[in-house]
């Protein structure tokens, strides 16, 4: 086994360095990890090169016969996608599958004529089985950000810790990206051109996640350094109304046969009626204060009052009227929502049973 061999190699070399200090030891094992991980990574070249869009990216080899996992990005939008292996060998590549809801893509190098075999690869099945690591866990980020590495040069490595592992979506307008599952946020600055599709690994070089694209986080209005876990698995309701679950492993299993999900277009929900009349919102970010309640409406039955401030809808903060409308548009009639409202400097919880919309348009705005 590879790992044993490398340890053996080290034990032969080791006595020479036996007297050196701790860092030398740490660096040795670190060097080995990098030597082990780098051959599993590739440099991608494709569309881009204009309007500030990079034409390069990173990818992770996930099978010995040349399947490569990367993020779904504009560089794939070309007939001339190229891949450089870690030893500099160039290949033409084709896109096998793209899943926007996971924001990942599978590409392949080699074909029947030009076979690729025995590539070093990440065992994604194993990797996906590992439980997520906690904030504070040391990680390494391998990528070709800024296209610093060319041909057979190794990837750029950044060291950091997992800052958080959490579901950033579920709030309003978090991401421009479509992926709404859990992500690793890291404290290394990976938010750079070309980093997307690179590997986030543990200190021991075990694959954790794919480095994400350059994105601004609406929560903080800052650039976010995130990675999509290889264990990513999400459930998305489809255009036909039925939910479907998909994971990165599904894509790897089905390969060419994989069909992307078909979620409904935004704001196609049926709409609901509450009987709440909110204050006018002449400026952005007007909080959802209740101006009036329609007598006999669900809101009236739930004893909501004028001047109540709606704070949370089923635990989701509605910072302004726009967010409130957005959240409510995801519900169906007859569902019950838990509203937390502020009244007399206190938060109160109120259950509100939603009704069918009275008119075609959403009735919550005057």
């Amino acid at each position: 086994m590879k790992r044993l061999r490398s340890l053996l190699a080290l034990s032969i070399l080791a006595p020479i360095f036996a007297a050196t200090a701790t860092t030398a030891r740490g660096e040795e094992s670190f060097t080995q990890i990098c030597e082990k991980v780098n051959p599993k990574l590739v440099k991608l070249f494709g569309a881009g090169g204009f309007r500030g869009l990079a034409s390069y990216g990173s990818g992770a080899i996930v099978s010995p016969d040349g399947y490569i996992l990367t993020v779904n990005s504009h560089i794939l939008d070309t007939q001339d996608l190229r891949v450089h292996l870690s030893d500099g060998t160039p290949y033409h590549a084709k896109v096998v599958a793209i899943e926007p809801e996971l924001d990942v893509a599978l590409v392949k190098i080699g074909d029947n004529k030009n076979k690729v075999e025995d590539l070093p690869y990440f065992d994604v099945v194993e990797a996906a089985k590992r439980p997520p690591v906690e904030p504070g866990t040391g990680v390494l980020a391998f990528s070709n950000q800024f296209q610093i590495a060319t041909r057979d040069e190794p990837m750029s490595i950044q060291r950091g810790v997992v800052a958080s592992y959490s579901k950033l979506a579920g709030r309003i307008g978090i991401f421009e990206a479509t992926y709404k599952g859990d992500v690793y946020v890291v404290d290394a600055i990976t938010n750079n051109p070309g980093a997307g599709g690179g590997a986030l690994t543990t200190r021991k070089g075990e694959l954790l996640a794919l480095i994400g694209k350059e994105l601004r986080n609406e929560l903080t209005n800052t650039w976010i350094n995130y990675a999509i876990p290889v264990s990513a698995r999400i459930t998305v309701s489809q255009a036909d109304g039925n939910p479907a679950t998909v994971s990165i492993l599904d894509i790897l299993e089905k390969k060419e046969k994989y069909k992307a999900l078909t979620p409904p277009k935004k704001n196609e929900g049926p709409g609901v009626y509450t009987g709440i009349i909110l204050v006018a919102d002449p400026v952005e970010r007007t909080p959802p204060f209740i101006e009036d309640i329609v007598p006999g409406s669900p809101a009236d039955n739930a004893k909501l009052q004028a001047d109540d401030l709606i704070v949370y809808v089923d635990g989701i903060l509605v910072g302004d009227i726009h967010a409130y409308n957005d959240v409510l548009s995801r519900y169906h009639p007859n569902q019950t929502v838990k509203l937390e409202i502020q009244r007399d400097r206190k938060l109160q919880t109120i259950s509100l049973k939603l009704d069918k919309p009275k008119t075609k348009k959403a009735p919550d705005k005057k």
Partner: protein
Amino acid sequence: MRRSTSWHCSMGLLALFVALVPDRFVASSVARADDLDELQEKTIKTAVRKIAPCVVQIETQGGTELVATGPGRPGGPPGIRLGTGPTTGLIVHADGYVISSAFNFANKPQAIHVRVPGHKEAYVAEIVANDQTRMLTLLKLVGLSGKLPVPVAVPKSEMLIGQTSLAVGRTLIGQVEQMPSVSVGIVSALHRIWGKAIQTDAKVSPTNYGGPLVDLNGRVQGVLVPASPRTEGETAGFEWYDSGIGFAIPLEDVNRVLPRMLKGTAKEVVTLKRGLLGITMPQQQGQDEHSAPTKIASLAPGSAAEKRGLKVGDVIKEIDGKPIDNQAQLKQIMGPKYDSDTVVLKVQRDKEELKFELKLEGVVASYPQPFLGILPLRDDPEAGVEVRFVYPGSPADKGGVKAGDRLTKIGRAMPPAPVRMTPIANRDQLMDMLETAVPGLELSFEVKRAGGKKTETLKIKLGETPDTVPTKTELPEKSSAKKALTKPKGVGPKPPEPPKKDDKKEPKKAELGLLKRTTAAADHTYWIYVPENYDPNVAHAVLVWLHPPGKNKEKDIEKFCESWQLRYSCEDYHLILVCPKAESDLGGWTRSESEFVQEAVKAVTDTYTVDRRRIIAHGMDQGGEMAFSLGFRSRGLFRGVATTGAALTGNVRDKTNGQPLSFFLIVGDKDPLLDAVKESNGKLKEKKYPVIYREIKNMGRQYIDGRTGIDTLEEVARWIDSLDRM
């Protein structure tokens, strides 16, 4: 000897490894090296878990879309947009008090809610105190008392550069019960931001502003904030987020002022201010704060320093037992001080060393600028001041001063002691003397009447500087004795201005007209316009034009200079125009360009005869914001700020005694900024600055063109001419 516990901890790790070195099985030794990392990782996680119950999640509703930041942003909207996500706070008192960064509330939200670990429901929170020196905000969670865990502060004496620091936040976390987010770094410096902050290389950003910086034992080193040594305000330093340059206010310092902050309520919010001595120490040309002496140049009336009897000319040698010999050291010691803090000063007065104990004040009371009611004749080498113009209805008018009179002596009436009259050397000396007075003060003047025959003594009670400008018909054309290069006869304590030229050399003929210039380092361009009738014997006023964003082309500048030259007569008013060029073609001015603007002005004052009392910054739109910024920040240079279509973007700085600053605000009544400019006018008046406010009918966002605002621009020219009013 006490050492930091985290020190102990890393010593422990080291010892562990040293014990391993003799191990012959090197393979296992490598594995142990991993253990070392694992051990550190474990320590980090334990520390984060320990502090987690004290770290709360803050959510807000409403608030403004953008937060103004003033010049300094390269392009983009006027200000920054705060995120919509939750922010972080740190419990500091069991009775439901949470400290956070003022950044998180910079958009003035209408409602604040806080989620506390271990508590099922969120709490309504109210702002009860603000610390303006450290940009912190204290929240009270309504209906919660005596139940919350309080963090342990790391004593400042234990903090060392290189110690591990963990930046902890709750923005990225969906549920408050989850482990908070963490970024790992070290303490990279202490006593930053004028002695107020710890610096760390952990990633600090809106994801953890307001959260704690924690050591490996889960104790709190400080509260994370954006901060900058050069600017103030809630958002200062935000541009450095995630850069490895992060700041935290030591929790020990927060705890020290906590009793004061706890007194606040939602209705009566406590505001902690910077402790001020109430003195100024201008820097001479060629000096910066690291070389300028700590000699008092002026004392604000009613300030801590004046009340305790410090005097102009005193040199501060020591504060709280720490010796100082330049202004930067003074700033470093005074930086962390709050209002009502006490300091002990040792000063040198002549050959004596004196000790003073002062209670600092948060505001230096602002007095309106005192006003005698005259314009002086300029460039006059004779002793005394010849009156060029008497403002109708002013104290001088009422007291019997006439145009053409020469004021020769001044005295302060201090009954029962007789008035002691001292000679007036020249305009600048009289201006300086009046500047340190307050309205209502009664003075005696010896006046030599026109013709030089009669001498009288007049009693005049000082008034307030009016918001009017002499009309065109009132203003006497003769403004200068045209002897600026003649050696003055009056003997004053200060060398007369303008600075003398080298008389022996044949003066090079000054270049006239519109001239393109570059800075010494050739990295910036500016234009100057010198009127064709330039006479080195007449001190010229300088108008610095700060163009609106995008109007930085040569043809834009030409157009501007042409209109001033033709319509407002740089010739008649002896006005030199300086037009620096902002580098950005779209975004306008950045704060860092202020140094270049000053360099351009200095180049002009070195080459031409310039009246240093009449240098003004004039700007439109974002150029106007730059003009405000320059006016407040380089008061030694600018005496006036004239803006059109520009509002103040930050707090109004207090008046500085001895460095008067006047404002002329112009706005079109169709300008969307109308209300903001009106508000700026109010803010400046509140601080007692002399402000002239003019609204131009049927004008939107444009420069005052020939049709609508010609009279107003003419008024600006006269205002510049009359800026040496006293």
